């Protein structure tokens, strides 16, 4: 059905379509609309799920882990400080191989207190063993949430998935949305190590140095295998519903001399900048990174690269720029822009491209 919706409402609609058995959630701006909408679905009985209104985000994730370990499909949503409050449990969800799906509405961290878009919240959780995808439109927020369940629950993966959308810029924008009937796109959830009272087993027990690393290696093996599962899932989604996604969304890259790399809504805004630059004779292209974990293999082919980081690792640099430096031979021109919702327009992005200098870092709005 073709309709219009906000990013938050799209995520909630997708979560309902995936029929989770348990939702445990705690509200936080700008995510609250997601869990409110899901609570309404449960109240009006258009979703048959146990909705657990917990007392904190830490408890929300703990409840999701417990429910998932018992074999229930689980969903939650959070943002910013809520995500950070879950931190311990995020490691646990991945290590326990409980494929929880969570929407994280990207928001800056305090102080100063700020409710606007930034990616540092999600990036600070990048080593927890969660898969992380970043979306750029309301439609993609919906589609990625649906696909997240199938990817997380695939036996080759069994790791949790975080769907990231920019706070306010995407969570609160109204755009067109085509909802789908999911049919058997997401197979029934069958956790091989689900708790079964007829077959008692130990969970989360003391694991000594002789075994612990094997579990860690198994997580990494699954993370590597997830690339194939993601590809299969995105291709199957395209076959059934007509929208194709990949690890990276490329725009006018074929003959580009310079490529802008960005995530989320800035990645879409960059496409407008590319059109402007092309109009003035610069062969520009853009790559919108969709998956942060597993990190995609980028083919930059010796072109100039401008990376926009809406995040920062203090004492190191923009996380995306540094990741690209580490995984390709590119020497990006690194721009730190959009922190705490800082307004970044396509004109600004076009200027980043015109003023690029390989191997440098600049902060948008800060005099060098």
């Amino acid at each position, binding site marked *: 059905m073709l309709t*219009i919706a906000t990013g938050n409402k799209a995520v909630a609609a997708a979560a309902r379509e995936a029929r989770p058995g348990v939702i445990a959630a705690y509200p936080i701006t*700008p995510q609250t609309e997601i869990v409110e909408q899901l609570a309404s679905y449960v109240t009006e009985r258009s979703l048959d799920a146990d909705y657990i209104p917990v007392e904190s985000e830490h408890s929300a994730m703990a409840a999701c882990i417990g429910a998932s370990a018992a074999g229930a499909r689980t969903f939650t949503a959070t943002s910013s400080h809520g995500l950070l409050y879950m931190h311990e449990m995020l490691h646990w969800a991945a290590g326990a191989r409980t494929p929880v799906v969570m929407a994280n509405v990207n928001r800056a961290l305090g102080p100063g207190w700020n*409710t*606007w878009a930034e990616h540092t919240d999600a990036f600070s959780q990048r080593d927890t063993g969660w898969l992380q995808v970043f979306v750029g439109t309301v439609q993609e927020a919906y589609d990625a949430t649906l696909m997240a369940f199938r990817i997380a629950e695939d036996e080759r993966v069994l790791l949790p998935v975080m769907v990231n959308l*920019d706070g*306010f*810029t*995407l969570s*609160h*924008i*109204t*755009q*067109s949305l085509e909802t789908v009937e999911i049919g058997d796109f997401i197979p029934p959830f069958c956790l091989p190590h689900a708790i079964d009272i007829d077959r008692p087993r130990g969970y989360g027990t003391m694991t000594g140095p002789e075994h612990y690393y094997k579990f860690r290696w198994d997580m990494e093996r699954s993370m590597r295998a997830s690339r194939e599962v993601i590809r299969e899932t995105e291709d199957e989604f395209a076959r059934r519903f007509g929208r194709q996604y990949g690890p990276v969304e490329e725009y006018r890259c074929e003959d580009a001399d310079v490529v802008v790399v960005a995530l989320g*809504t*800035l990645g*879409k*805004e960059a*496409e*407008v900048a590319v059109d402007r630059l092309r109009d003035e004779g610069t062969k520009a292209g853009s790559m919108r990174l969709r998956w942060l974990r597993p990190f995609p293999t980028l083919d930059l082919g010796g072109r100039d690269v401008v990376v926009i980081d809406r995040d920062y690792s203090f004492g190191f640099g923009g996380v995306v720029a540094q990741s690209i430096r580490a995984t390709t031979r590119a020497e990006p021109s690194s721009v730190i822009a959009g922190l705490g919702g800082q*307004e*970044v*327009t*396509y004109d600004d992005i076009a200027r980043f491209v015109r003023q690029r200098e390989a191997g440098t870092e600049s902060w948008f709005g800060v005099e060098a």
Partner: protein
Amino acid sequence: MAMFEIRIHSRGGQGGVTAAKLIAQAAFRDGKFATAFPFYGAERRGAPVVSFVRISDEPIKVYSQVREPDMVIVLDASVMDSVDVLAGLKPGGPVVINVAEPPAIEGHPVHAVDLTGIALAQKLVVAGSPILNTPVLGALAKLGLVSMESAVAAIAETFSDPRNVAVAKAAYGEVQA
């Protein structure tokens, strides 16, 4: 048409955000691409706020705020004391204002419509505030921004109280095009 960009001025609690959504919804029903979004500041009830709408025949990839609107809508004329509602407005761009008597604004056509009076006449008041976002849709339909059919459908889809459609029709009749 190329992309048409609108900025809506109101005060927190007056429904400016919903007005933007309703316009997008109506434009979408007309077969256009449309996006609507508020600028969320640390606003409180009563503080001046802005929301934006973009309408286009092409998919819209721009997420940054509207800087040079084609049209400005002022749901509460009192914000004009503290906010430059004409900032960036394109030359000749129309201004729709919720007032009975249109103020003269050099270089821009002004469309006055007493949305507050229309809402009060229908006793369409929520939490002490007259509803402005449904009548304004009727005024915008009269000005050709969206079709009246789509405006009415968008309102009916969003609000169950039929007076919301009635005020839109009243504003359609009253606005000075």
